[in-house]
């Protein structure tokens, strides 16, 4: 009985030792990032591939763009991540210059639910009017004029939007503000806005779920969701053959990597990773329904990367 007890306490001590050591078991080269949830599937894939290739481990926490900005500003992570358009005001309280690198782009689609209708064309002005609550029925003459060959039912339009603050909303409202003066002056663009009409649903899955349920509804979700759920989406006028509602997702980091007792080796590890993500890593975008960076975007990002410093030393 006594031996048994001693054995038990030994096992317990062993378990405790392992459990206590776990948070500290990360090696010096392990990198920590936090931020946007939109690129999370892509980053997971990239980091797993990078780990298989180099053995480096990257821990990415998908906690939202806002939290990503806060954490890089507070220097608690090696890199932050965000969607939408980085603004200088986002980094006001940062103790140093923060630079941002584009990593991938993603389309925001406009799914709709009209019984018997698979395709519909909407001009950008009309889309804004629908989301402003000015066009309220699918039988409206304005919609019929743009879709002469479609038999449109006389259904009230139910707008479905995101209820949670999100980069997807930022991309979509930025687009509406760019095509509609009325939208720009009455609603504006951002991660959360004051919606003139509609049902709010949480997450991309919430919006696509509501659109699938409500006849006469229209919403906006990340492209991947409309593909996976096989939803009908509105055709919007393209700009030079490019789908117009697109957003970029960014990695944020300090230009001077010498902070918080970080080693130069760690800074170099980070720059190596980012260079790989901009080059080899891009091949994982399209299978996951993201878009690759254009050649110009990639060149500009690599220039930014070359500007990184460690104190007075260059990292490249």
């Amino acid at each position, binding site marked *: 009985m006594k031996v048994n007890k001693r054995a038990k306490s030994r096992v317990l001590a062993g378990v405790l030792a392992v459990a206590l050591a776990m948070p500290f078991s990360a090696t010096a080269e392990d990198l920590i990032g936090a931020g946007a949830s939109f690129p999370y599937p892509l980053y997971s894939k990239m980091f797993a591939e990078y780990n298989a290739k180099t053995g480096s481990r990257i821990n990415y926490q998908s*906690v*939202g*763009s*806002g*939290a990503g*900005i*806060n954490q890089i500003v507070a220097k608690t992570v090696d890199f932050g991540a965000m969607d939408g358009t980085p603004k200088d005001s*986002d980094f006001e309280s940062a103790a140093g210059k923060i630079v941002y690198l584009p990593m991938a782009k993603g389309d925001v689609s406009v799914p709709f639910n009209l019984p018997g209708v698979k395709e519909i064309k909407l001009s950008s002005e009309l889309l804004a009017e629908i989301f402003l609550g000015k066009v309220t029925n699918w039988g409206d003459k304005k919609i019929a004029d743009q879709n002469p060959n479609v038999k449109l039912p006389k259904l*009230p339009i*139910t707008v479905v939007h995101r*209820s*949670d*603050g*999100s980069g997807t909303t930022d991309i979509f409202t930025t687009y509406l503000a760019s095509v509609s003066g009325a939208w720009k002056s009455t*609603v*504006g*663009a*951002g*991660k*959360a*806005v*004051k*919606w003139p009409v*509609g*049902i*709010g*649903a*949480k997450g991309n899955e*919430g919006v696509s*779920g*509501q659109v699938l*349920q*409500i006849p006469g509804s229209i919403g906006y979700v990340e492209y991947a969701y409309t593909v996976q759920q096989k939803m009908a989406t509105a055709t919007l006028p393209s700009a030079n053959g490019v789908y117009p509602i697109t957003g970029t997702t960014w990695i944020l980091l300090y230009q001077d990597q010498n902070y918080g007792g970080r080693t130069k080796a760690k800074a170099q590890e980070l720059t190596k990773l980012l260079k790989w993500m901009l080059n080899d890593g891009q091949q994982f975008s399209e299978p996951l329904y993201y878009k690759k960076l254009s050649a110009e975007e990639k060149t500009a990002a690599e220039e930014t990367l070359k500007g990184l410093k460690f104190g007075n030393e260059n990292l490249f």
Partner: protein
Amino acid sequence: MKIYSKISSKFLSGGWFISLIRVSAVAIILLMLAIAVMLTLGALPAIKHFGFGFLVGGDWNPIENNYGALPFLVGTLITSFLALVISIPFSIAIAIILGEFNPTGKVSALFTSLVELLAGIPSVIFGFFALFYLVPLVRFFQIKFNIIPYGVGIFTSSLILAIMIIPFSASLGRQIIKMVPSGLKEAAYALGATRFEVLKDVVFPVARSGILAGFILALGRALGETMAVTMVIGNNNALPHSIFDLGNTISSIIANEFAEAGNALHFSSLTYLGLALFVGTAAINLAGKYAIKKMAKM
């Protein structure tokens, strides 16, 4: 050996146990205070900026950085009280059947544990149930009665909240009704009272304050419920005009916007809402306690 017995007697006297429970009790009070202080500090920028006008402001606009709590206060109160009203007949009926008419036996035990099981189901599951079954049902009736067929909205939220809070009031009511001294009831029966008369004139007056306590517990649960409500209330930040309108509650707007509230005033306004909910829930609980005391004396 002597030392051992000394320690043992000290251990057995239980002084350490008294200290332990004292520390635990004080810790709970400190925790409450810490939450209140944390919420107040977090809300301070918004309190300074908007004052108490925040509570009656009807506009919530993160782009223009203007925040008012009225739509959410109204949403919270309507959903919670409507849920309470819907739940009352059901929970009283359950409490009477399981507490007075069928207090023992296998069927009674089965129903009692089923009711209690209902209280243990995670709220996200209730949310899914509401989304997939209640929403289409409500939409069906909305189409029939020519109301805009959102399906989601304040009424649907109240329905799911009512289902969620029934076990709280029903199970407390059942226990209280069971505790009514049988001597009182037997005396009434001996005087020729019917079963209904015993229930109306003996059981209810005795159990009244306990049943009320169950309703207050249930109301508290409804006021703070977040997940299920967020899933079916429609998350519209305008002041609701009818019970079939879309809306938002304090907890659902916090759940929606807290993670991405980048702007300091936005963040602080959400904390201010949290503080309002904290104070409001405490006030309703205190008022309830007072009502229970008054009733118990009657």
